[in-house]
C-alpha cells in the first residue's frame, strides 16, 4: 500500500502565466496556492514527455501541476530519465525512487500541422501497463490535452473521474463600477470574460450541458435573471417580473430553472422554463424562501427559509406540498448545495459569529464544519464530488477556495487586483 505522508506538510505551489485572453482587464493574474494535502498521497512519477521540446514541456508541466494540486499525489523526481510511451520502463529503478505509478509520453507531428500527444501509465509494483491514450491536438490546445491526460491518470489511480478539464465561473469586482463574469480553466488559467457590467452580477449557475450560465444582473437597477450562452454571447431574460428576480438554479435535465421572485409579495420560489415561459409557484409559506437547489435526481428542491424564526434549510418536492426541515444545529444555516451523488449537502453555517463551509451527510444528518474562516459563501461542488469551491475573504479581499470534502486539502485562488467572488464549478466537459 501507499506510504502515509504527514498531513501538516504545507505545500505552497505554483502560479501562473499571463492570461492572454483576458480582454480589457488590467488585473490579470489568477494565482493558485495549495495548503494541506491528503493523508495518503500516491507517489507518481511523470517523466518529461519526449518529442518536440517546447510542446512537451507544456504538457508535462500541466499534467504534473494538475495531479499535485489535487492533493492526492506526491510527485517523484524523474531527473535523468529519458523515456516515452514506447520505452520499456526500468521498473526496479522507479521502485527504488519510490514511485507506485509512472507515466511517460511524447508529442509527435500529426497531419495538417497538428500535434499528437501519446502517453502510457504503468503500475510500477506490478510491472504492467495501467492505461494510455493518444490525442490529436494543436499548439493552442496543448494545455487542454495535458488536462485530459491528467484526468485519465487521476481516474486510473483513484477510481474517480478527474476534474482537470472542467471550468469555473466567478465574478470579479474590479471597482465599484466594474463587474466581470469570468470563465477560467479549473487551474485558473485561460480566463475569458463573458460579461462586463457597471452593476453587480451574482449567483452564476451552469446549465447541465455546460454551455450556458444563468445569473442575476443588476444592470437595470434591480435584480433580473438572465440565461447567457457562452459561445455566442446571446442572452435571454429568464425572469423579469415586478420586484426582485434572483437565485437561479437549473433542474438536472436543463429544462427548467428554479428562481426566487417577489412579484406575489415576499420572496417565493418558482420554476420557469429556461426560456422564461411557464411560471409556476413552488413555495407558499409567508416567509423568506430563497436559494433553491435541485437534488440530482430532480425530485426535490432544497432551499433556505426563515419560516421557523431563523434561516434554516428545508426541502420540498418538485410538485410542491409540505416542506421538511433539513438543518437543525445553530441559528443560521443557508445556501444548500447537493453533492453530485445526492448523498451530502454543502451549506454555510454561522458558528461563533463566523460563516463557515459545512457538509451534512443527508442520511445520518451528521454535520462537519470544513473551514475555520470567517466569511465563507456560495459553495459549489466539483462535478466528481471531491472538492467544494467557495468564496471567502483573506486580508480584506475576496478570494476563492477549493476545499476537499474531508476538509484536508485547500486550494486558494486569488486575483492580485480586485475581489473574486460567486464561484460556480462547471459540469464535466463533454
Amino acid at each position, binding site marked *: 500500500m501507499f506510504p502515509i505522508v504527514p498531513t501538516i506538510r504545507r505545500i505552497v505551489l505554483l502560479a501562473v502565466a499571463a492570461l492572454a485572453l483576458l480582454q480589457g482587464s488590467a488585473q490579470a493574474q489568477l494565482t493558485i496556492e495549495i495548503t494541506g494535502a491528503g493523508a495518503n498521497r500516491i507517489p507518481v512519477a511523470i517523466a518529461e514527455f519526449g518529442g518536440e521540446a517546447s510542446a512537451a514541456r507544456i504538457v508535462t508541466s500541466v499534467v504534473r501541476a494538475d495531479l499535485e494540486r489535487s492533493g492526492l499525489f506526491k510527485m517523484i523526481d524523474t531527473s535523468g530519465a529519458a523515456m516515452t510511451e514506447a520505452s520499456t520502463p526500468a521498473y526496479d529503478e522507479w521502485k527504488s525512487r519510490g514511485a507506485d505509478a509512472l507515466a511517460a509520453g511524447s508529442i509527435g507531428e500529426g497531419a495538417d500541422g497538428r500535434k499528437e500527444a501519446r502517453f502510457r501509465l504503468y503500475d510500477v*509494483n506490478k510491472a504492467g501497463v*495501467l*492505461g494510455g*491514450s493518444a*490525442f*490529436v491536438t494543436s499548439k493552442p490546445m496543448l494545455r487542454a490535452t495535458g488536462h485530459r491526460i491528467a484526468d485519465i491518470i487521476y481516474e486510473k489511480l483513484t477510481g474517480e473521474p478527474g476534474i482537470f478539464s472542467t471550468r469555473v465561473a466567478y465574478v470579479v469586482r474590479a471597482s465599484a463600477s466594474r463587474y466581470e463574469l469570468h470563465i477560467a480553466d479549473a487551474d485558473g488559467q485561460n480566463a475569458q470574460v463573458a460579461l462586463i457590467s457597471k452593476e453587480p452580477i451574482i*449567483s452564476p449557475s451552469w446549465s447541465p450541458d455546460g454551455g450556458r450560465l444563468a445569473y442575476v444582473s443588476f444592470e437595470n437597477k*434591480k435584480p433580473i435573471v438572465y440565461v447567457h450562452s457562452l459561445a455566442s454571447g446571446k442572452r435571454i431574460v429568464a425572469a423579469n417580473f415586478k420586484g426582485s428576480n434572483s437565485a437561479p438554479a437549473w433542474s438536472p435535465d436543463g429544462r427548467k430553472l428554479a428562481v426566487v421572485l417577489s412579484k406575489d409579495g415576499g420572496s417565493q420560489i418558482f420554476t420557469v422554463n429556461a426560456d422564461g415561459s411557464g411560471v409556476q409557484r413552488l413555495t407558499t409559506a409567508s416567509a423568506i424562501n430563497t436559494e433553491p437547489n435541485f437534488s440530482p435526481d430532480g425530485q426535490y428542491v432544497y432551499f433556505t427559509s426563515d419560516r421557523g424564526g431563523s434561516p434554516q434549510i428545508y426541502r420540498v418536492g418538485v410538485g410542491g406540498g409540505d416542506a421538511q426541515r433539513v438543518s437543525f444545529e445553530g441559528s443560521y444555516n443557508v445556501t444548500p448545495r447537493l453533492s453530485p451523488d445526492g448523498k451530502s449537502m454543502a451549506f454555510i453555517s454561522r458558528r461563533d459569529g463566523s460563516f463557515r463551509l459545512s457538509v451534512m451527510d443527508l442520511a445520518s444528518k451528521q454535520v462537519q464544519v470544513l473551514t475555520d474562516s470567517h466569511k465563507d459563501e456560495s459553495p459549489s461542488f466539483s462535478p466528481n464530488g471531491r472538492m467544494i469551491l467557495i468564496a471567502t475573504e483573506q486580508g480584506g479581499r475576496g478570494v476563492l477556495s477549493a476545499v476537499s470534502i474531508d476538509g484536508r486539502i485547500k486550494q486558494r485562488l486569488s486575483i492580485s487586483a480586485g475581489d473574486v467572488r460567486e464561484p460556480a464549478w462547471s459540469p464535466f466537459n463533454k
Partner: protein
Amino acid sequence: MKRLLIPAALALLLAACSSTPDSSDKAGGAPVETRGGSGGVTTVTTGGVESRGLPAVLTDPTSILSKRSVYFDFDSYEVKSEYKDLVTAHAKFLTDNRQFKMLIQGNTDERGSREYNLALGQKRADAVRKMLTLLGAREDQLESVSLGEEKPKNEGHDESAWAQNRRGDMLYSGEF
C-alpha cells in the same frame, strides 16, 4: 485509497498496437482536442440606464423630498417613526403627481449569504412600499426591489458602516 489494478483488456489492447497506441476510450481513433461550441466565450458589455431631469422640488436640498433614504435597525424590517414625515411627504408627492413612478431599493449590510440578504433587503423595500401605499400612493406607481448587500453606501466593515447600509432608497422615474 484504491489499489492499482491492471485492466487486462486494456493492457492487451495497448500491447497489440504498441507503435501506435490508440485512445483507451474511443476505438474509432484518437479524439480531436477541441471543445466545440462550449469552449469559446464571447464577451458582452451591458448597456446603461439613462437619467432624466427631475423637478426641482425633488432635488432641492432644502426640500424634504430631496431626502430619499430610510435607515433600519439591525435585523429589523420596520420603518422607524423618525422616518414617518419623510415617507408621508413622498406619498403626498406621488398622490399629487400620479404620472410619477417610484422604485424602492432595499439594502442590507454585508454579513451572511448574498441571496438571503437579497431577500432581507426585499423585506425592507416592501415595508417602505406598504407605508407609501397606506398613505395614498398607488400600487402601480411603486415597485419594491432589493439590492441586498451588493451596493453598499459605506464600504467599511464595522457597525457604523453597516448601519448606513441597512437602508431603503426611494428613486423616481428618471433616476433608475
